[in-house]
């Protein structure tokens, strides 16, 4: 018997909406990353994109624990000497909250070509509105199965 190997055409992709209001950033990102990779499906395969589309709304209301809002810093480099830019999460969450969520999810996906493909299925919006009503996304509740 051969282990099932998904073909690109036969993967069903659903759409999920996650409301990020008062959800801790990392805990939000683990759920989003699981859905994007498809690890919640029995057809999961590590070399194929078996995941779903994820819409995150209210990214501006995401929660950070401790004093990370004041101390956590996001870095990026332009490539030029002295080109290291940094922005604190307090500023980032007010100006571009969708970027903060994207960064958190991106860090939890594989850092390879497949990972860069997976992140494109993530759509983050700072407010409660999203333009994907036509895809009929299903609300995703963050819950944990008790052990």
């Amino acid at each position, binding site marked *: 018997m051969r*282990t099932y190997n998904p073909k690109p055409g036969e993967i069903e992709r659903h759409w999920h909406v996650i409301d990020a209001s008062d959800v801790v950033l990392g805990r939000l990102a683990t759920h989003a990353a699981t859905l994007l990779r498809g*690890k*919640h499906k*029995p*057809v*999961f*395969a590590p070399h194929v994109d078996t995941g779903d589309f994820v819409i995150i709304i209210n990214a501006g209301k995401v929660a950070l624990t401790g004093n990370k809002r004041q101390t956590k810093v996001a870095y990026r480099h332009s490539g030029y000497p002295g080109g290291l830019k940094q922005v604190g999460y307090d500023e980032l969450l007010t100006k571009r909250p969708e970027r903060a969520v994207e960064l958190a999810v991106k860090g939890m996906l594989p850092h390879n070509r497949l990972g860069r493909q997976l992140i494109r299925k993530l759509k983050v919006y700072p407010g409660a509105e999203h333009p994907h009503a036509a895809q009929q996304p299903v609300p995703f509740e963050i819950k944990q*199965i*008790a*052990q």
Partner: protein
Amino acid sequence: MARVKRAVNAHKKRRTILEGASGYRGQRSRLYRKAKEQMLHSMQYAYRDRRDKKGDFRQLWITRINAAARANGMTYNRLIQGLRLAGIEVDRKILADLAVNDATTFASLVEAARAALPATEAAA
């Protein structure tokens, strides 16, 4: 005694290596010395990975069983514990195949496992 010319065997040896290294990147598929070095490593990797393959597949089956078990409201850990207590000897390869191709049978196995678990651990 028959005369053996050395060039025949020398050419054959080089041809075998270069054919084996076909498709490799850059010089490693074209130059004998580079190809030979790479083939020595490639054979080692192939030998090692034929053994690793068993574990790789087991890992994949467990991931799939976990996904299906969670869809039925149970974690992989508790499912395996329950199946063992229930005396159901279905291995992970078959469980993973059931999870993909026969969801109803898988769900009945989850129920059997849940029934076999002690009450304190079967909660939720």
